[in-house]
């Protein structure tokens, strides 16, 4: 398995797209930290970028990569190698490459400018988001043999999780504003990895006062050790469930 991962990573790292992604992240983080005198504000700006760009790039790149490596998958499937090895070496290869890009582009500057607990929360939630959206991308890719459809599904999922979901939750909260919705909104966030990541970082930035009662409930929950562990546990579930499901489909798929 390690051997195959090696070839996958080697193939991806030479890809101009990943190099461009790393540079883009690097330039953004350097400029945010460089122009803002308050590193707190820098982190906040970084957070917004990470919540949009990282999921989008992870999901699109992984989907395209999966379809482009179909030949490689076919070649390997005629070799003495289990489907599990074939599938997970692809997955881990993409995860490793994109995580490296993220660590270089965001992790390194954040560590230099804001090497505090807050900085680390930002880095770890960004990394988790990368892994989550690679998982979701693989899930979208095994669904159909058609590349255009696969990318469509991936984009749809990104759109839903990063943009639409918040709108839906917001409208639900508004229509039901006569009822105490603080607990409910806590539950809503669990169903969206970007929201979870956002709140994890925001709670570290002491801006929860801006979020009213909901913010207070969140602050209470996500500042406790249990709350943080639950959030991380949920994020890890968001990695495992899509990829496990994707593997189940891939295992029965005709290549």
């Amino acid at each position: 398995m390690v051997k195959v991962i090696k070839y996958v990573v080697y193939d991806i790292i030479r890809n101009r797209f990943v190099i461009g992604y790393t540079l883009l992240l690097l330039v953004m983080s350097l400029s945010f930290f460089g122009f803002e005198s308050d590193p707190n504000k820098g982190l906040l700006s970084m957070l917004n970028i990470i919540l949009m760009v990282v999921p989008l790039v992870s999901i699109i790149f992984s989907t395209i990569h999966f379809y482009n490596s179909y030949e490689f998958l076919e070649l390997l499937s005629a070799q003495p190698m289990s489907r599990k090895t074939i599938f997970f070496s692809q997955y881990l290869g993409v995860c490793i490459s994109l995580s490296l890009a993220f660590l270089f582009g965001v992790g390194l500057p954040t560590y230099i400018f804001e090497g505090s607990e807050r900085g680390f929360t930002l880095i770890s939630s960004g990394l988790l988001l990368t892994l989550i959206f690679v998982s979701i991308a693989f899930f979208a890719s095994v669904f159909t043999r058609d590349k255009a459809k696969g990318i469509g599904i991936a984009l749809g999922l990104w759109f839903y999780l990063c943009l639409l979901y918040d709108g839906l939750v917001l409208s639900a909260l508004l229509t039901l504003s006569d009822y105490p919705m603080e607990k409910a909104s806590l539950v809503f966030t669990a169903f969206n990895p970007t929201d979870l990541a956002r709140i994890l970082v925001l709670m570290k930035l002491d801006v929860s006062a801006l979020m009213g009662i909901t913010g207070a409930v969140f602050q209470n929950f996500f500042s406790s050790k249990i709350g943080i562990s639950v959030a991380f546990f949920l994020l890890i579930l968001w990695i495992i469930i899509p990829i496990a499901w994707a593997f189940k489909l891939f295992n029965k798929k005709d290549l």
Partner: protein
Amino acid sequence: MTKKMIQFENINKSFGKLQVLKDISVSFEQGQSVAILGPNGSGKTTLIKTLLGMVVPDSGSIFFERQSIKNAFLYRNQIGYMPQIGHYPPNLKIRQLIDMMIDIRNSKENNIELDEELIDEFKLKTVESKPLGTLSGGTTQKVSAALAFLFNPKVLILDEPTAGLDPLSSEILKAKILKEKQNGKLILITSHIMSDLEELASHIMYLQDGKLQFFKELEFLKIEFCEERLNKIIALIMQKKTKIYT
């Protein structure tokens, strides 16, 4: 004396509504050289892919050396597969691909003797630094053939091996197939070039619309049809089938 290598038992497979394999049961023994024949779309490639585990049959089982291949993969150590159209990672160079396959198949630890005869005869070393994406169809075929024979497998599966090869390379490949046949390997070939099969095959398996029509020795067929030439025999069979349908 002979050893049952591969056994298909009641294999069914559909892609959507189209049933491509209908209740196929057949077994192949060591030393046989089987030509899998049939019109286009009769399920030849699908049958091969089920054997490789690339296509999962809806029902039925396949045994390789008496072991079910379901969820197994180590049996593929014994198989060399030459696909109809080789799809390879386009950025990889020929040398890198070969090294990678050797690396993956682990032949240093398994101590398989590498058979580089075809690499030498096709002169692949002179083009080894070319990326696979830039190769012509024929050169890609040569790479596929060289890889199929490289690990000295007990079973060779060749899907249209000579299609796209120039006459010289085609002769080299045929000579190699004959040589391996004499070494007692099981060889499965699909092809539409009857003259090639006449030289290479000992048995004929005929598929039509996903059904196995017959599996017989070539010599036996020749006597049955009172005809020496394979393409005549196949033409007669195809005519007979169409008569039944019309």
